[in-house]
């Protein structure tokens, strides 16, 4: 135990005399200029999407609602204003009646969720690599 303590204080004394390694004189300048160059590059070529996330959500919601109404709405095409609007937007004469089984609906939703998760994870992965 004593020997260990002696060795500890001997190494402490020896290393104090030695000091740390010295990086090159221009070390800090070189890092800062690299950072500034990166900042400049980012502002010069900054990516701004045409549609923001909120706008994409709104667009998707509208499209999904229109399709949902057209397919599942069971609308009276002569009287309902929404039905007439749907007809105008889709410009389709008369959609055939779709009947999806529950299995298909759940499978479709499941696949959709997995695709969405993958997009999210891949995006994170690419951001990490970059």
């Amino acid at each position, binding site marked *: 135990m004593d*020997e*260990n303590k*002696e*060795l*500890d204080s*001997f*190494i*402490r004394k*020896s*290393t*104090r*005399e*030695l*000091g*740390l*390694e*010295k*990086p*090159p004189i221009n*070390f*800090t300048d*070189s*890092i*800062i200029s*690299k*950072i*500034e160059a*990166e*900042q400049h590059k980012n502002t010069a070529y900054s990516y701004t999407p045409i549609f923001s996330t909120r706008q994409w959500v709104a667009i998707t919601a509208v499209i999904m609602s229109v399709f949902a109404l057209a397919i599942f709405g069971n609308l009276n095409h002569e009287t309902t204003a929404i039905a007439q609007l749907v007809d105008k937007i889709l410009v389709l004469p008369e959609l055939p009646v779709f009947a999806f089984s529950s299995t298909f609906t759940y499978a479709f939703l499941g696949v959709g969720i997995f695709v969405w998760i993958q997009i999210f994870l891949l995006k994170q992965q690419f951001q990490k690599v970059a």
Partner: protein
Amino acid sequence: MNQPEDAYYIKAALKGDTKAFAIIVDRYKHMVFTLAMKMVRNREEAEEVAQDVFFKVYRVLSTFKGDAKFSTWLYKIAYHRSLDYIKKQKRTLNTSAIDVNDHYNLPDIAYKLDYLEVNERKQTIKDAIDALPEDDAVVITLHYFEELSLKEIAEIMNITPNTVKVRLFRSRKRLAVLLKNKLESEILDNYGRK
């Protein structure tokens, strides 16, 4: 070099103030560079790794939550960045061939070191530390040069404080054996020259 001062410059750097970040770099560059040197064992490569560390730190500075010391967080990045560099170069960490049970006489080593000129003494100690396996050299550097606690070293190297304690104990003994061997060979060399 206390916490509030680091926090002040970190806050400024997060707002894009590169001058504030330059102060942080100046404050820690010696230790980061020393750690990289102990790991990659080459001055040019260590410079590349150390620059890469600070560049990365600037990019991820917003993820520093302040629950640990900034230096511990920074040295952790430096240590793991060096490990990644070694892996990328398809190199492996050295293992020690020095037996910790080898006999050494501490008063004799101290006496022989005192007998050397200052520069010669510094070089002998430096050579002995550099001859240690990378992880041993890092433990010695963090504990004796930066005076970090076992817990802080454990946090940096992702090991338990107990493992650090054992590693430090062995590293000290290996360093003593290396110093003994180096001093003996130097004395033989000097004797041969005469």
